[in-house]
């Protein structure tokens, strides 16, 4: 049903110098500590990473709860911040598509979609036989997902041992690692413009609209980059 060799190859992407395990560990430990601070118990903290598994959305949830926001407001705020997962899925799953594979694999494994797993899969899917790419993806996703859950629990447990400076240090690892990965992915004009323009527009639009900034920045920067790429024959 699942090709174990492809699955294990995916799982093994957690090892080695390009592994996302370290940055994932750093940011989910920081998240676990934040959850403790926000009044979550350990089961709730683990459940959040198990069922949501998307750090920016979980941060929005924890902060909104601290501010006393309603559940409807939390839903909308999280939907807007995690909407990036939609274009990310559409730019990855067609590469993993194979007629012989059942649809449930795609519907279930889309839960594993996060920045770390997405960047690794985009970087390495070509090495895998097209038929088993979805199994490879499920291996990557299982590894990154379980790391995130485990580290949330560890972060919760060690929260009292971490001072503020240490937590700040842990929290910066995530954006730095992913920026490096994205710079590594800038191999053609369209992607390079997408990354540079997106980085600039994200914070700039945030000044005018905190909620809609990601959506607008992504659409504007992405469309401009696409048109440039098309015009220059890439």
């Amino acid at each position, binding site marked *: 049903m699942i090709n174990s060799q492809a699955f294990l190859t995916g799982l093994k992407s957690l090892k080695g110098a390009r592994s996302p395990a370290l940055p994932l560990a750093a940011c989910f430990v920081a998240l676990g500590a934040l959850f403790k601070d926000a009044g979550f118990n350990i089961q709730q903290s683990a459940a959040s990473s198990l069922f949501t598994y998307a750090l920016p959305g979980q941060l929005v949830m924890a902060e909104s709860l601290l501010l006393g926001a309603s559940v409807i407001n939390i839903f909308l705020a999280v939907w807007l911040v995690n909407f990036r997962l939609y274009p990310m*899925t559409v730019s990855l799953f067609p590469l993993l*598509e194979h007629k012989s594979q059942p*649809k449930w694999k795609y519907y279930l494994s889309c839960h594993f979609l996060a920045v770390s797993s997405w960047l690794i899969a985009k970087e390495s899917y070509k090495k895998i036989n097209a038929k088993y790419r979805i199994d490879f993806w499920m291996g990557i996703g299982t590894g990154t997902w379980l790391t995130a859950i485990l580290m949330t629990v560890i972060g919760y447990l060690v929260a009292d041992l971490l001072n503020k400076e240490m937590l700040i240090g842990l929290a910066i690892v995530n954006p730095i690692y992913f920026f490096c990965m*994205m710079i590594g992915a800038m191999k053609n004009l369209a992607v390079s413009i997408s*990354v540079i*323009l997106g980085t600039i527009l994200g914070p700039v639009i945030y000044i005018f609209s905190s909620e809609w900034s*990601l959506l607008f920045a992504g659409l504007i920067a*992405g469309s401009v980059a696409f048109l440039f790429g098309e015009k220059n024959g890439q």
Partner: protein
Amino acid sequence: MDSSQIIILAIIATSIATYISRFMGALTSEKVSVKSKIFKWFNCVAYSTLAALLGRMIIFPAGVLADSELIMRLIVFFTCISIFILSKKNLVIPTIASAFLLSFLTNI
């Protein structure tokens, strides 16, 4: 409603709000061919949305990062990106350096 119930509701709402985007993405993917222009467009939008999020995390962070100073985060950002490029794209050194550098700069 006590605070524990509110937290559980918030976790459920957050999980549904997140899964919707992933599931819609999986459904849309069935109709998108790898060679089509729309696929290329989605690829650009995905990279730029991600870049926007990361840019925002550095300039206007949420969570504990908000307690550090912007200038310190920018110093760490530019230093670590330079290390990454100069070290021929080694990921481990800039990643570990970022944690120590920002902790140190926040502490002084």
